[in-house]
């Protein structure tokens, strides 16, 4: 299975998208939907961010799903902690979507895994609970095991479960980077077939100086894929980053080598 790229750019944290959400202007969302698809994204992540008040979120997610589906055939990743908003959006998705995200808290897992089964959706499961993100890989893997068990209980196939062992910015939490790599390798051994894995890749370079963020992202992506990463929420328009993803598929023997392999990775 090829490495999956979830385009991160349609997020209310970005000013253009935040403003567009408030003004109900579809153009910036549609621009980034098309641009990320061209860059090589396999899924489009949609996140309203804090731009929209809580009571208007459900409506906002429906609007986002509709305007993005007008210009792109790509499946969607609905990214929110507000499950009513996600459910409202799921009702309108034309292709099986992914719910992003749930942590290992029992009440939340119950709601999200049931919702996933109702809408034939995938789930991103975070290796944390209400107490926060553990440092040690053993604790991350323990949470992953709870997510795997819950998915099994609710009948979610392992290929639809994306476990996110949560990478933190390297400039303030350097010790996490190695722990996440160790976690990825162990998560892939939790079940057979194995659950999939995902990271919010850009987090690793958050708040680092601009001249090294791309390098951090590219290097960590290669290391993480080598350790067992199957998907990344990432910048689909950093051409070199997408080239790194393509090259890992060749070096891991997942795609047959041809001189022009970079050109075809972006084709669907």
């Amino acid at each position, binding site marked *: 299975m090829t490495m999956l790229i979830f385009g991160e750019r349609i997020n209310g944290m970005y000013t253009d998208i935040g403003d567009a959400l408030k003004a109900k202007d579809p153009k910036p969302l549609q621009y980034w939907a098309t641009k990320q698809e061209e860059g090589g994204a396999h899924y489009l992540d949609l996140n309203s961010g804090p731009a929209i008040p809580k009571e208007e979120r459900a409506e906002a997610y429906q609007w986002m799903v509709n305007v993005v589906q007008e210009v792109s055939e790509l499946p969607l990743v609905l990214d929110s902690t507000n499950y009513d908003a996600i459910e409202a959006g799921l009702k309108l998705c034309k292709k099986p979507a992914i719910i992003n995200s749930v942590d290992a808290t029992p009440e939340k897992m119950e709601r999200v895994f049931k919702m996933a089964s109702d809408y034939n959706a995938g789930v991103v499961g975070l290796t944390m609970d209400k107490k926060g993100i553990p440092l040690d890989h053993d604790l991350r893997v323990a949470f992953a095991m709870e997510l795997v068990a819950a998915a099994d209980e609710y009948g979610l196939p392992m290929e639809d479960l994306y476990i996110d062992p949560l990478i933190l910015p390297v400039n303030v939490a350097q010790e996490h980077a190695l722990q996440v790599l160790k976690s990825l390798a162990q998560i892939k051994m939790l079940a057979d077939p194995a659950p999939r894995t995902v990271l919010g890749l850009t987090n690793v370079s958050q708040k680092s100086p601009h001249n090294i963020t791309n390098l951090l992202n590219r290097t960590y992506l290669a290391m993480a894929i080598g350790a067992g990463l199957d998907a990344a929420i990432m910048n689909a328009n950093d051409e070199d980053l997408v080239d790194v993803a393509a090259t890992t598929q060749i070096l891991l023997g997942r795609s*047959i*080598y*041809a*001189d*022009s392999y970079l*050109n075809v990775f972006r084709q669907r």
Partner: protein
Amino acid sequence: MSVTIVKERYAGKIGEVTLGATAEQGGTRTSTVTIGGDSALPFLHFEGKVNRPVIAMEVNDIPPTWNTTLTKQYGDVFNSPGAWAKQCVDDFGADLIYLKLLGADPDGVNRSPEDCVRVVKEVLAAVGVPLIVVGCGDTAKDNEVIAAVAEAATGENLLIGVAEQETYKTYAAAAMVHKHTLIAQSPLDINICKQLNILINEMGLPLNKIVIDSLIAGLGFGIEYAYSIMERARLGALGNDKMLAMPMFCSVGYEANRTKESNSPIEDNPQWGELDDRAVLWESLTASGLMQVGASIIMMRNPAAVAVVKKNIDELMSV
């Protein structure tokens, strides 16, 4: 006790390729042939769609130098490519005609491109099935011949060839402009096979207008190696590698009949048995072996072997 059948699920499938064009589609064929579309490994019907392999019988524009064990099964047709093709279709049940224009060879009869076009038209007029047309093997001459044939048969959706890594541009252009399908041939090399498909596709020929020929060998002469290349291509394609997801062509008749086993008389090796039986077995076993790894178009020569392979296909497809 109930047994659960383990089924493999694949992410990708083989692209469908249609050969020939009827009058409504811009050609003159009375029927077309569609190959590919498979979503499982060959003949594993319980796992997905399996398409039926087809047989293309070889016709040349000059009388063949084949062993009499082959030629004696044909009528008086070798001086008339049209009659030859018609016998292959009417009497032997060929799904397609594979017309190899050997007479174009500059070291042989050195036929002009115009003469080659005349032969192609004769065969088109004689049979209603789709045609595969390939040159004599001389690169410079074949460029001229196939360009002329492609133009003269515009809209017929011939399967033309062969495009190789060094020569593909002329062929791909001819296929695009004149609406034909192309054989992309690579020298028993999976990486070149994929690269050639990419290059042809980048020129603008759609993937469903390409058929792979990764080359084969006859039984006993390296068929295992050819099989392993085809197997990698097929597993890659089912794993969703679209640049390998084309139907595959195999020149079985050519490879099986250039072996000693298909030609030496019983006097040379009494323990091998009669040549007439042996030649049939050699060609039909080469064909049926390669069918098991996904051969879609099987090029054949020996009418008796064609009958054996057709029976084998019927059995493998009847589920």
